[in-house]
């Protein structure tokens, strides 16, 4: 029941693996999300997990918990392992997309799909969707949203920098429009996968 998914988003790539229901006697914890720091894309390795990684894990885990129908699999632990292969900006959004696709591939029942979109606001207020690492560093504010597929509601949001209320609504609207493209990509990828076999 293991599933592996390779989502290629421009120059970024991630692999997520899913493990199915384990036997009884395992931990009572329902869900775990671990950001693997054992090997980084530049070849270095680290065993120390910082607070920033813990914070990111909590965001991804809570987003997954909101959509997964956990009640259908009691006494089950679902582990999502994300390995960063290369980071060229918008990393958290890519992690969310990979996690969603991996959950679909593993056949975990969900009430909706979700996708991650990043917006960057530069100093004169121009909105850039899906910024590169350079654009993120130079931006005044970077906002990452997770949106669900049913009603495009905001599931998760994390922001960096200062911005106004109006700019937030603008970014959210742009992210909701962009999420359509991501969901279409999901649909096409899955169609391709299941039409071959």
């Amino acid at each position, binding site marked *: 029941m293991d599933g592996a998914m390779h989502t290629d988003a421009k120059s970024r790539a991630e692999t997520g693996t899913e493990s199915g229901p384990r036997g009884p006697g395992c931990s009572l914890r329902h869900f775990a999300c671990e950001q693997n720091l054992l090997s980084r894309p530049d070849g270095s390795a680290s065993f120390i997990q910082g607070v*920033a990684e813990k914070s990111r894990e909590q965001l991804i885990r809570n987003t997954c918990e909101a959509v997964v129908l956990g009640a259908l699999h009691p006494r089950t632990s679902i582990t999502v392992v994300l390995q960063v292969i290369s980071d060229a900006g918008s990393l958290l959004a890519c992690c969310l997309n990979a996690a969603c696709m991996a959950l679909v591939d593993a056949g975990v029942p969900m009430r909706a799909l979700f996708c991650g979109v990043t917006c960057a606001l530069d100093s004169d207020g121009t909105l850039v969707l899906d910024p590169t690492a350079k654009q993120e560093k130079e931006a005044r504010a970077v906002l990452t949203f997770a949106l669900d597929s049913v009603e495009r509601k905001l599931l998760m949001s994390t922001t960096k920098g200062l911005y106004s209320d109006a700019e937030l609504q603008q970014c*959210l*609207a742009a992210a909701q429009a962009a999420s359509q493209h991501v969901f279409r990509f999901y649909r096409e990828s899955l169609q391709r996968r299941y039409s071959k076999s």
Partner: protein
Amino acid sequence: MAAGFKTVEPLDYYRRFLKENCRPDGRELGEFRTTTVNIGSISTADGSALVKLGNTTVICGVKAEFAAPPADAPDKGYVVPNVDLPPLCSSRFRSGPPGEEAQVASQFIADVIENSQIIQKEDLCISPGKLAWVLYCDLICLDYDGNILDACTFALLAALKNVQLPEVTINEETALAEVNLKKKNYLNIRTHPVATSFAVFDDTLLIVDPTGEEEHLATGTLTIVMDEEGKLCCLHKPGGSGLTGAKLQDCMSRAVTRHKEVKKLMDEVIKSMKPK
């Protein structure tokens, strides 16, 4: 009778109150608990503040020490926050290394400091490339009854306003720092970020300032950090049920009113402290 029902069906018990647009402790859906703040209680710290939001109690102590500035920014100092949720504040925490909630809260406070630019790090520099101040902000929760992030942000702001740094001169001949403890200056606090937390119930209702029980029953949480110009420093929504843009807008307006309330309280306390 009511206590039995509450234990067996906590969610239903809550829903009955929410239907009447109020909560078991008598508050409205948009009402905060009584906020009290006490500044300067710890004399051994360079700045301190104790904040109580209902039963939730957080104390913040700021210690200033010397350090060499970072190599890539020789004219900047450091502000290092740390949130500690010890076992004494709630039975859900065990002793040992910081749990996930404490780490997430520490990261949240670090983000708020970074995004809101509450202190210009250049102000903490004494001698570029050689000496700078590092402010260790330790936030300890003494009683956990929900809404820890709001209390921590307020405690941090109040403590930083209370910090007095002595004047430091570098002696030209010995190249050593000389500290003049008699001459102390307050920090230049540029903005006043205030956090407002909401809990989402049953995917639709939003309540402000959740208690510990309400957080446990909620299907999602949202924290908005706003400064006085209405600019947002942080919109922290770690998963949970979805929210539409319109609901977010309502939260923004509540955050604006909360900011005014907190600012007024802070100004009163600072004013009562001044003649010393």
